[in-house]
């Protein structure tokens, strides 16, 4: 799948933002006034920024308002509704903490749960697609949720729990790569099942339907850059969890090491998300004899 910057930024940043909102919602840290303002500002900037980035992917954004209508069947619609409801609810909670010196605890808990639900709906946009076997597994949702909780803990400054979560996240990410590598074969799709010609022999593409890449190929048959995927996996795998943990533990805690830890985590997150798209193979590639 084409690793479009808009979807990489969208899933990465909004995941982080809702992860941070989750921690703020359950009261870790319990901050008020200006420091609460700073925290909520970061969370909203990430969540809203991510959502806005996703609209760059739309061909016809003027109809985006209709995206809130199909919650009964569409995960993308549910994602839109869940994020707006969460952001509105948490805004009330934030006003309490920032201006009134009050923590509306129940509201916070509901908001935290909704934040996680929002991340889950994002994950299901991808995990529901049978056409992309690498994504079509439960681990995909586990991965998105772990990213949000771990990254959120790091941003929320919950160092002791963040360290554990970042290590768990690293394990989850490697498990996803392991399982993902086998998914296409497990799903059993081949050029023979795609064309139905398998009983006549081995099938190969003789002539493509068009001479230069079309929308389908640009969007779904992305094969560039896979050769670097091993290296990128190592960079991502080390940078998203191990380096931040070392920084947080080895150095005496100070704003610079904390900022560096966040920077490494985000770098790892972007690299892993790039791979999430670039390595995903869509079954339509079978018709083009390339994945």
């Amino acid at each position, binding site marked *: 799948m084409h690793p479009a910057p808009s979807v990489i930024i969208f899933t990465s940043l909004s995941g982080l933002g809702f992860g941070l909102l989750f921690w703020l919602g359950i009261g870790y840290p319990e901050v008020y006034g200006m420091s609460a303002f700073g925290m909520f500002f970061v969370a909203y900037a990430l969540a809203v920024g991510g959502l806005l980035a996703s609209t760059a992917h739309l061909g016809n954004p003027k109809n985006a308002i209709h995206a809130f209508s199909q919650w009964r069947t569409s995960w993308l619609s549910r994602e839109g509704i869940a994020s707006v409801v969460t952001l509105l609810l948490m805004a009330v909670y934030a006003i309490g903490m920032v201006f009134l010196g009050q923590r509306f605890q129940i509201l916070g808990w509901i908001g935290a749960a909704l934040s996680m639900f929002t991340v889950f709906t994002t994950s299901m946009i991808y995990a529901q697609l049978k056409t992309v076997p690498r994504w079509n597994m439960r681990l995909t949702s586990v991965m998105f949720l772990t990213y949000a909780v771990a990254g959120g803990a790091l941003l929320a400054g919950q160092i002791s729990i963040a360290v554990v979560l970042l290590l768990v996240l690293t394990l989850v990410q490697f498990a996803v790569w392991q399982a993902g590598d086998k998914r296409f074969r497990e799903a059993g799709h081949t050029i023979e099942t795609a064309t139905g010609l398998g009983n*006549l022999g081995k099938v190969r593409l003789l002539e493509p339907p068009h001479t230069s890449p079309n929308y389908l190929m640009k969007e779904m048959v992305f094969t560039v850059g896979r050769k670097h995927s091993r290296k990128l996996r190592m960079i991502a795998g080390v940078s998203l969890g191990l380096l931040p943990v070392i920084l947080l533990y080895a150095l005496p805690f100070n704003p610079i090491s904390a900022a560096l830890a966040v920077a490494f985590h985000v770098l790892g997150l972007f690299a892993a998300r790039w791979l999430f798209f670039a390595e995903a193979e869509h079954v339509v590639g079978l018709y083009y004899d390339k994945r």
Partner: protein
Amino acid sequence: MTALPQTTQKKLGLVIDLDICVGCHACVTNCKEWNTSNYGAPLSDVDAYGAEPMGTFLNRIHTYEVKQEGCNAQTVHFPKSCLHCDDAPCVTVCPTGASYKREEDGIVLVNEDRCMGCGLCAWACPYGARELDQLAGVMKKCTLCVDRIYNENLPEEDRVPACVRTCPAGARHFGDFADPDSNVSRLSAERGGMELMPEQGTKPVNRYLPPRPKTDIGGENKIDILAPFLEPVVNEEATQDQPGGFLGWLDKALEKI
């Protein structure tokens, strides 16, 4: 609404005969011609005369080579348009309600006035049957020529999809799969009509008729079926001004006149 109907009264669709299709792309051209000037936004072309032309098409022809160990390879031309699936994943993923499957005849359509061009439906389709138009920014797909098949302004013989009407080989057939006696149901039953990628669970309506088995003409190197008849001539000694083989025979035959 992007919920799928429980059942549809009719199941309109196509039978595509892989034995007959000659890969001429006439259906591709006529499909584009009809659909660019009728239902919805035109099917745009980008950089049409440049180095990397790219356009929106609702129907595409792939050509495959099928080869069995020890046999001659076979060429199969493979037209592909929307299969109007019963369990269409492209419909249920759509967040705006633009994609829908019609209860009355099973046709899967896009309402362009609601589509926001997110492309998720194209991701959900296993067959590559949906393309986002690069200029209009909305999703385009085969409409089963809904604006022809019920169109009383057209002469009766034209009330079939453009691709079916134009195919010079008669490789595309249109009809109702819900009726077991329809042309398409009977064709599909007689010839073992197949679903594409059935393991995706989309329950396609369209059926593909497999190529008929080719007569085996004797393995890899015996492709010239006339060779045995020419053998006596071939075996005669060929010299410089007395060519052998077919030419030799021709030479002699002309000499005799």
